[in-house]
């Protein structure tokens, strides 16, 4: 239940502005890949092109190919909705639906699409997803309460439960811990390690220790200057990137000499 992603010669534009230039990257199935780099270098922009969330922004478009197990996401006739149901996403800030209970938030992917589901199946799905997000024990007694009443860390895990409830192939995470305290961050990092057994995980992070802790492979993005496009500088095994990078820029960044 997980697929690999191969990106070929991808350019990402906001209208005429080239935001990310010429990315080639191969992300293995059932692995954790971290994107690191200074702010504004296009990590998040690139991440959003991997499930066609990029084009939600007016004027945004891409050139090149993103292959999910060989199928081009940007091929003619591909429905972005199908793409997004296969590649889930967790955002920087926890965003549970305020009008829904915890249970309904987990079932959102099913219910919003009007898919018929029996109560028994729904109960199983809710428990499995919340177990998968390490949240079940904390919320099992108050599934009917609003999701917005949870703490920030719990809300973020609720969003992860919501994402895995639609059983995607790949989970994208855009700085999932940047709004959380160290303990909640630890809970999410543990969770990422467990998710790896079933899903392909791609995570954008500003925290290099986090990248080192959770990821198998790391991609370093950088930007030459304001108004210039972001580029993928180096991609390799996480230990190599952090201890023995090929590029000077990567070494400077991971050793904290700039950025």
């Amino acid at each position, binding site marked *: 239940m997980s697929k690999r992603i191969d990106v070929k010669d991808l350019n990402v534009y906001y209208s005429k502005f080239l935001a990310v230039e010429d990315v080639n990257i191969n992300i293995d199935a059932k692995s954790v890949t971290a994107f690191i780099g200074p702010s504004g270098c296009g990590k998040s922009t690139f991440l959003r092109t991997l499930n066609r969330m990029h084009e939600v922004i007016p004027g945004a478009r891409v050139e090149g190919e993103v292959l999910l197990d060989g199928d081009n996401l940007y091929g003619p006739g591909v429905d972005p909705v199908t793409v997004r149901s296969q590649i889930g996403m967790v955002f920087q800030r926890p965003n549970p639906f*305020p009008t829904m209970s915890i249970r309904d938030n987990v079932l959102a992917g099913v219910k*919003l699409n009007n898919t018929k589901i029996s109560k028994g199946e729904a109960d199983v799905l809710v428990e499995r997803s919340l177990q998968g997000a390490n949240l079940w024990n904390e919320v099992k007694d*108050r599934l009917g309460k*609003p999701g917005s009443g949870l703490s920030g860390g719990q809300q973020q895990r609720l969003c992860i439960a919501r994402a895995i409830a639609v059983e995607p192939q790949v989970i994208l995470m855009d700085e999932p811990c940047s709004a959380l305290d160290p303990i909640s961050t630890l809970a999410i990092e543990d969770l990422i390690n467990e998710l790896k057994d079933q899903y392909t995980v791609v995570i954008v992070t500003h925290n290099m220790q986090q990248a080192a802790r959770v990821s198998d492979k790391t991609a370093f993005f950088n930007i030459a200057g304001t108004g210039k496009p972001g580029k993928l500088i180096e991609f390799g095994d996480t230990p190599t990137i952090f201890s023995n990078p090929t590029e000077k820029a990567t070494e400077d960044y991971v050793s904290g000499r700039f950025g």
Partner: protein
Amino acid sequence: MTSTLTPVRKRSALTKGQLPKAAPYIVVAVALVLGAAIMALIGFNAFGWGIVSGILFAAGLVGWSLFVEGARKAKDKLATCLVVGAFLVALLPLFSVIWTVLVNGLPGLLDPGFLSTSMNGVTGAFDNKTVEEGAPLLGGIYHALMGTLLITVLATLISVPVGLLTAIYLVEYGEDRALARAITFFVDVMTGIPSIVAGLFAAAAFFALVGPGTKTGAVAAVALSVLMIPVVVRSSEEMLKIVPNELREAAYALGVRKWRTILKVVLPTAISGIASGITLAIARVIGETAPILVTAGFATTINTNVFSGWMASLPTFIYTQILNPTSPSNPDPSSQRAWGAALVLIIMVMLLNLGARLIARMFAPKTGR
């Protein structure tokens, strides 16, 4: 040991002179007495007494404070007096209107049959009898009440779908296109249309489409929707805009289609604001007089068919009762009816506003643990 003892003082070294707790009440009492004395000299009336006492109170309290507490506290008291004074001045017309309408309207409203009979067959002769022989007051506002309700409901049925869908287009699909900008511009222009123009437009449109002289409740409803749509568009647009984009993106990322996202995530999140906006828009048009005069005409009989015949409404009922009393020689019964109708209208608007608050609270996203 004794060197560390704190000195025993009567008052903290950190405070200056203080007014006694009862100071404002003392000043109020003195100001009221003095005010009464001054008014007695130049001729007493309650309104002047209030004004003079208020000024005396402010001057007395600020002066006393300046003497005992110093300049900073005195300035604080002056500012408090000014703010409270402005607040009272702002409330004065509101309470005055409500009081006047209550006093004048209650006799009419409490008249048996006022809410359940129409003016059908009530002529000046009956009113003359009421005044001259003390016969019971006949006639009521049932026909006007029904007219107002039917016209407003129909106007709401027209305006809400049009206005809400326009707002959804502007916020979710417009993307700053030329069409969206044009709609925004014309909605802004429409907000400023004088209501009589809306009435003339609706009348002219129906004269051209249906036939000259077409005056029905439906025409009035169209005129009112012309006034209502921009209000609904504007308020719904604002409410939809403040739905965080993150919620839309969260739904898209779950593989939910755009129209479902709008229907099941965006609208439920904004529904409380939209509903109260619509209710306030209804309250805004329910008291319109001019557009109904030119579109639905007057009636003294009950007409519950909005698609044929002239129709009465509360505002036009008030207008005609005051301007053309049923009995020209004894206008008092007519003016009593008009005040009664005004009271009913105000109660309806109040209920609508309360309803808007209730709706907003009912639909508001739930919080709690």
